[in-house]
């Protein structure tokens, strides 16, 4: 089967294009799929992570996936971010060091993910950010990663990559999985078998809402949203039929046309942010408990 891949950017249309590939290939088993990039004029590098959510499922069903007719500019960026190594294409040295490479992690590999952030978030052309911003950003990424590890049931693991846009002072980082989606966990927890994906995402964003049983939780996404708000960044959450976006322009939640096979969180941060992210007054143990 040959499928066209069109221009893919970090927006609802881009995620829906990826979900359409998943839909068209859903019944395939032991088959071959050619992803034809001849009509793709632009591919934002961080979208390699959600694209891999589709590829991972295809490979899990023992399908042979290949890439054909990829324009050279796209090939260059996807060799620089190591995505094409999964198709046995040799990496290219990232001269400007603006990529955080594509990587596949096992669900239990939180510490390896932290090591990866150590390597690629410190210098290496990825922006020099204030210590406070770097810490909050890393905390946010680790919260997202561990959420995926605990809740996704994604057998192929968690897929990550990032891209720095120096002219815009923006850094995009994307964490995707090929799991059951937020709605499955929320449906089970709330015993509401019909809850749709958009409502499930909204449920998960409420402070204190967690699908873990007999344990408090549900702060990770709320903290992430607060951080994005202070940083003037952007947050996108795509899970099954749900698309959520939060930025300075406001908040929107839309139903997607197609079923994205898993969950993807994309964070775009403003790298010029100099906010301290610290409280003015110090708390003691006595203030906390």
């Amino acid at each position, binding site marked *: 089967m040959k499928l066209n891949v069109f221009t893919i950017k970090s927006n609802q249309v881009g995620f829906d294009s990826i979900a359409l590939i998943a839909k068209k290939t859903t019944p395939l088993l032991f088959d071959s799929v050619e992803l034809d990039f001849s009509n793709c004029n632009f591919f934002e590098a961080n979208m390699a992570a959600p694209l891999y959510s589709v590829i991972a499922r295809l490979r899990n069903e023992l399908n042979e996936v290949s890439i054909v007719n990829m324009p050279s500019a796209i090939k260059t960026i996807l060799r620089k971010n190591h995505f094409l190594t999964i198709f046995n294409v040799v990496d290219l040295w990232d001269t400007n060091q603006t990529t955080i490479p594509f990587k596949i992690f096992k669900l239990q590999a939180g510490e390896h993910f932290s090591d990866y952030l150590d390597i690629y978030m410190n210098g290496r052309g990825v922006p020099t950010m204030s210590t406070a911003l770097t810490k909050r950003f890393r905390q946010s990424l680790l919260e997202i990663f561990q959420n995926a590890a605990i809740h996704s049931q994604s057998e192929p693991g968690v897929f990550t990559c990032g891209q720095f846009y120096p002219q815009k002072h923006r850094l995009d980082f994307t964490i995707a999985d090929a799991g059951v989606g937020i709605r499955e966990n929320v449906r089970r927890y709330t015993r*509401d078998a019909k809850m749709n994906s958009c409502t499930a995402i909204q449920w998960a964003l409420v402070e204190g*809402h967690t699908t873990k049983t007999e*344990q408090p*939780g549900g*702060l990770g996404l709320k903290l992430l949203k607060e951080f994005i708000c202070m940083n003037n960044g952007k947050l996108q959450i795509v899970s099954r039929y749900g698309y959520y976006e939060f930025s300075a322009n406001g908040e929107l939640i839309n139903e997607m046309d197609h079923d994205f096979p898993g969950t993807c969180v994309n964070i775009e941060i403003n790298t010029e942010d100099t906010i301290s992210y610290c409280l003015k007054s110090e708390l003691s143990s006595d203030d906390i408990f």
Partner: protein
Amino acid sequence: MDNRITIKVTDLIGSRLCISSEDGQKVFEKAESLLKRGKNVTISFDSVTMLISLFLNVAIGQLYGSFSEEEVRSMVKVDGLSVDDMELLKRVVDNAKKYYANSKEYDAAWRDEGEEDEE
């Protein structure tokens, strides 16, 4: 006699990264067993390089499921946390108190929402 025992988190979990629920569970179980024996506990985060809410929910938030607010306040202390991590812990503690006070109420409200089917 000083009854206080310090749990050095990095020694107990063997890592400077407080990021997993499994490691949080180790800290919780150690603290819970000491508190049940009437010991006062200091949870020390000295040398920790990264801390996330998920870990704190399990390690400390869960204590409110086993002990009253008054017991936790009088018997548990933390040290070695930066100012911003103390703020994070405060959020976790406030959230845990709310969770154990009325965990089922939020969910019932969401079950009443009208829904459309998806595939």
